[in-house]
């Protein structure tokens, strides 16, 4: 019982940590492409960790299956969204940041 | 019994079903649309007329939706006053539908006609549902349909001004809907019920005075916008003058009145007259609507646009109705309800006359109407007959309602209000007689109006004449209606 709670807690903490990282990156990085980089990846990873933590916490039940489905959807949709945003930004010709250029606000 | 007991829902459901079917009916040929509308409204009107045999002035007809008894389910509750207004709505919208059959081809493209009639039927059905219902949340739901369809109908021409006017209407109307919802929430939070009859019983012994007070203030603001109560009327002139004429007739003749009717219901059915929360609010309502009478009348005199003038006159007359409600005795209430009826007819007739002029010539400015009577005598005569009712000259219906309103004011001790009614009538006389003077007595411009009679088609003239004649006829036979109305009003007040 205790071990399960501890594992779940650790996973959730890891997930939250990645969320914080992703958000910091979103705020601090200079252009669209580099901002996409932390936001999609960290959110996917953080979300998955939190959900897996919850799966561990809930034990083996119907809820676990639902959480598993959410993980699957998160993996697909988050990656696709990142791709779509990046691609459309590229197609639109939004400039890519290089060293020395001002940060766009 | 049998089918008779289901009439209340049929009255509302028939126009609604027809509205849903309207795109399909108009898919092959738009010509079928107006005929279907007329059939639906005719059947609603007939059923409403038949209900007069069932509803006694002191009683009411209750129809339980889904067979649940009232506080748990929704109740349709038709008493004599609401039946009277239901009949007004049915009759006027039927006439407007007949009018628009020919007219609307002039103002709208062919592919918009099915949606026009769909919205028209939804507007009518929602007004019927709004008036008939005995459940306060249900009232809100129907008010939303009413509001949405009237925004769309104002904007339906699709040009810049129309969309602008509709947007103004929307900006005023949406917050007012929210306010009504908020007020309903407040009432629900202190009573735990939504049925009006149940509410009034629960309010009587409720300890939450502050909440009740706030809810009635918010109700008055919310429905005040819908009824174009004086400081909240800003949307009305634009919306009513820019909409297509049949819609102006509906908005000015019915929709605004239905807002006033809602205030009546809130004050008399939900908060009963004996309720201490009401004491201050009705005085404030009286002062505001008295200001509205004068303001609307004065601005109507200064207008250059014909339809704009009629719209301002509506503000003035809404002031009459609400002033009569705020006096809170049976005479004034009878006058108010009868004024809803005769003002609805007269105002619809005004706008339809304006529509007939627009149909024939496209003129909207008052100056352009100089000498119109030479070419369109029938329309002009109909207009002047309705104008007599708006001014309140005996024996028209307008006189009867004003008579009762003034009587009620004097009986209640509000002598100032009686004076304001008289001043309002003088103002009405000024703005109506000005138009009549222009139409009949000024020589026409040769290139604008021919001297030969060239009238609008019969489908336009028949509704116009029916409306203007009935303002006269119902004035003459008012002794048949008024006693029952007064009984119903007394019943509503004493309860």
């Amino acid at each position, binding site marked *: 019982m205790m071990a399960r709670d501890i594992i779940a807690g650790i996973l959730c903490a890891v997930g939250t940590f990645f969320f914080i990282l992703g958000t910091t990156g979103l705020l601090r990085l200079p252009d669209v492409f580099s901002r996409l980089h932390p936001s999609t990846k960290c959110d996917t990873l953080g979300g998955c960790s939190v959900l897996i933590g919850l799966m561990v916490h809930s034990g083996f039940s119907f809820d676990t299956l639902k959480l598993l489905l959410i993980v699957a959807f998160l993996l697909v949709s988050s990656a696709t969204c990142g791709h779509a945003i990046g*691609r459309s930004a590229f197609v639109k010709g939004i400039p890519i940041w290089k060293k020395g250029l001002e940060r766009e606000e | 019994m049998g089918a008779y007991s289901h009439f209340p829902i049929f009255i509302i459901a028939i126009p609604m079903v027809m509205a849903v079917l309207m*795109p399909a009916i108009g898919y092959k040929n738009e010509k079928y649309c107006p005929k279907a509308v007329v059939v639906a409204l005719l059947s609603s009107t007939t059923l409403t007329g038949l209900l007069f045999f069932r509803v006694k002035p002191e009683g009411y007809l209750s129809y339980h939706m*889904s067979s649940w008894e009232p506080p748990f389910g929704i109740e349709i509750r038709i008493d004599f006053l609401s039946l009277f207004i239901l009949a007004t709505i049915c009759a006027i919208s039927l006439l407007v539908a007949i009018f628009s059959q020919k007219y609307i081809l002039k103002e709208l493209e062919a592919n918009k006609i099915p949606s026009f009639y*769909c919205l028209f039927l*939804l507007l009518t059905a929602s007004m019927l549902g709004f008036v008939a219902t005995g459940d306060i949340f249900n009232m809100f739901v129907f008010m939303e*349909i009413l509001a949405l369809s009237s925004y769309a109908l104002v904007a*339906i021409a699709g040009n810049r001004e129309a969309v602008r006017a509709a947007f103004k209407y929307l900006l005023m109307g949406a917050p007012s809907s929210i306010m009504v919802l908020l007020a309903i929430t407040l009432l629900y939070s202190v009573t*735990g019920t939504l049925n009006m009859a149940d509410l009034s019983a629960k309010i009587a012994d409720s300890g939450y005075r502050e909440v009740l007070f706030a809810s009635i203030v918010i109700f008055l603001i919310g429905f005040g916008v819908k009824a174009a109560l004086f400081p909240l009327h800003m949307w009305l002139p634009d919306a009513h003058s820019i909409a297509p004429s049949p819609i102006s007739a509906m908005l000015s003749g019915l929709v605004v009145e239905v807002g006033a009717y809602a205030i009546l219901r809130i004050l008399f059915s939900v908060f009963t007259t004996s309720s201490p929360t009401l004491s201050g609010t009705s005085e404030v309502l009286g002062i505001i609507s008295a200001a509205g009478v004068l303001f609307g009348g004065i601005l109507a005199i200064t207008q250059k646009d014909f339809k704009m003038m009629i719209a301002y006159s509506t503000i003035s007359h809404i002031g009459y109705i609400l002033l009569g409600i705020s006096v809170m005795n049976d005479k004034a209430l009878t006058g108010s309800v009868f004024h809803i009826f005769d003002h609805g007819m007269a105002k619809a007739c005004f706008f339809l006359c304006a529509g007939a002029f627009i149909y024939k010539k496209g003129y909207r400015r008052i100056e352009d109407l100089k000498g119109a009577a030479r070419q369109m005598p029938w329309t002009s005569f109909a207009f002047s007959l309705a104008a007599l009712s708006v001014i309140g000259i005996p024996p028209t219906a307008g006189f009867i309602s004003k008579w009762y309103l003034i009587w009620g004011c004097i009986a209640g001790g509000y002598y100032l209000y009686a004076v304001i009614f008289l001043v309002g009538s003088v103002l009405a006389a000024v703005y109506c007689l000005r138009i009549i003077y222009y139409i009949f007595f000024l020589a026409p411009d040769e290139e604008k109006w021919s001297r030969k009679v060239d009238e609008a088609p019969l489908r336009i003239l028949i509704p116009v004449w029916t409306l203007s004649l009935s303002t006269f006829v119902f004035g003459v036979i008012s002794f048949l209606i008024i006693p029952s109305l007064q009984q119903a009003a007394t019943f509503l007040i004493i309860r």
Partner: protein
Amino acid sequence: MKKFFSLLFIAALAILLLYVVSNMPGMGEEDVPTRQNVIPRYLENAEEETGTENVITGVILNYRGYDTMGEVTVIFTGLAAVIAIIGRERRGKNYAYTDLSEIASSVIVRIAIIFLAPLILLFSFYTILHGDVSPGGGFQGGAIIGASLIIFTTIFGLWESTSRIPQKLRFPLEGAALLSFFSVGAIGIIGGGNFLTYTLPRLTTSLQPAVRTWLTLLVEIGIGVGGAMVFISILFALLREEGGVVGY
């Protein structure tokens, strides 16, 4: 001046509401008025009287079904308003449409949508059909169907969607919600009750629960399909554009 008055009005309203809130019955307490009148009956008897495990669905569709009919009409009126003002989409060379998807050519997105859209649809059907047992129901499911069709349209373009769901099909389906209410209402009247009665008095007692379930289901499906079609028709009408494509 105008700004001053509107601020004054809003401030007055805010003060009034704050004053009211301090005097309102407390939230969630035992003896508040909202817990005394209609709510106890709903909570205790809904399952038995309406045949739906989810009390919300019982209240929405059965006790206050007429209100829901009104809500459905509001949605339908919204569609009618949009169609009246901007018109339906039309096919033809002269009609362009606003293309939202410059990324439409991306294979990854297409594959992902092809994978996801059916699952979303499946979920929405589950939501509609399971409304009487679990949270959800016609409105929610309809909104989700609408959302999945919107995703499909943004990726594959307007013509692809309109050829899947042509106008002729949408005409009856847009009104499906209201029509299902009316048909259930008519069945209620024929069955000896009032409008929208689900438990028909004319039937034998043993048949009543089954008929009630089927009628509830009919209304749920009607609301779902009608809502979805209204959303998708509004989307198509919005995307339609006479003349060239206007971007920002």
